[in-house]
């Protein structure tokens, strides 16, 4: 059971801040993503090579998904959601590399993502319809429902974080437990399933954020019609 880390392990401390293995892995992933994006976009051309083709396909998939859900102004939310999809997808895959810990199997990471998603809902809501117009949707249809609106905001944020955390941690735990009770190759099919689950959960996280943002933006036009 030594390899089963439910909690992150502290590698070193900077004052009161503990630098855990999760944070180091996240830095590594960020460096890899930035390096890949930097080096693959050096020689852009109208007739794309294979690397540029792959990046364009990823970008177009992100753009199409956002345009389907948010036809008004997809370019406003695209940087945030694209970053979410890419970093969460890469983080979910990182646990497959030996020696790396899945960063999203740590509740701190997923809560950080969820808080960013929660903040972005309000930021985009206020940016599109102003502070007053945004706050007015809290008293619809009546004032009595105000506490329920606030409870819904909190619970959906917690649910977003716990969903990603639980899925990733369960995948890791299944692999470790099977390795303990059976041989070397038995966890392989479960790891294959874990890849699919990781990609789907990254997609789900972004899509739910997109739905929440769309819900925050669209309150006013619906009211006017």
């Amino acid at each position: 059971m030594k390899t089963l880390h439910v909690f992150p392990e502290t590698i070193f401390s900077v004052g009161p801040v503990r630098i855990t293995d999760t944070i180091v892995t996240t830095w590594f992933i960020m460096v890899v993503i930035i390096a890949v994006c930097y080096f693959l976009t050096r020689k852009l051309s109208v007739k794309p090579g294979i690397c540029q083709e792959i990046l364009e396909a990823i970008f177009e998939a992100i753009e199409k998904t956002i345009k389907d859900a948010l036809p008004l102004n997809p370019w406003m939310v695209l940087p945030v959601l694209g970053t979410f999809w890419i970093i969460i997808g890469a983080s979910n895959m990182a646990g497959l590399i030996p020696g790396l810990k899945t960063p999203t199997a740590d509740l701190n990471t997923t809560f950080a993502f969820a808080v960013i998603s929660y903040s972005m809902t309000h930021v985009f809501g206020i940016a599109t319809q102003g502070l007053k117009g945004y706050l007015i949707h809290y008293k619809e249809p009546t004032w009595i429902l105000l506490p329920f609106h606030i409870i819904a905001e909190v619970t959906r944020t917690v649910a977003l974080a716990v969903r990603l955390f639980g899925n990733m941690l369960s995948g890791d735990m299944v692999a470790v437990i099977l390795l303990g009770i059976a041989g070397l190759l038995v966890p392989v099919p479960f790891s294959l399933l874990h890849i699919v689950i990781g990609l789907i959960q990254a997609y789900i996280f972004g899509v739910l954020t997109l739905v929440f943002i769309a819900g925050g933006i669209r309150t006013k036009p619906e009211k006017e019609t």
Partner: protein
Amino acid sequence: MNTLAIVISVSIITAGIAMAVGGYGPARALGNALEKALDSISRQPEAADKIMRALFVGMALIESIAIYAFVIALIVLFANPLIGYLTK
């Protein structure tokens, strides 16, 4: 049997029951959702993209309920606050 042993054994049994009950409901719900989705895809194959997208999001939402049970079971097993309270 001292108090610590009782707390530990009850925690283990509770974690098992939580996973069993928490897995049952979402499993049935996932089955229902998939059945209806396949049903509607076979009726309208041209709407398969939209149905699949809604199915994935809905399935993840349903599945998160099972995940909550799993997280509760993990807290009970690995981060039980009562054991720390007793052994203090």
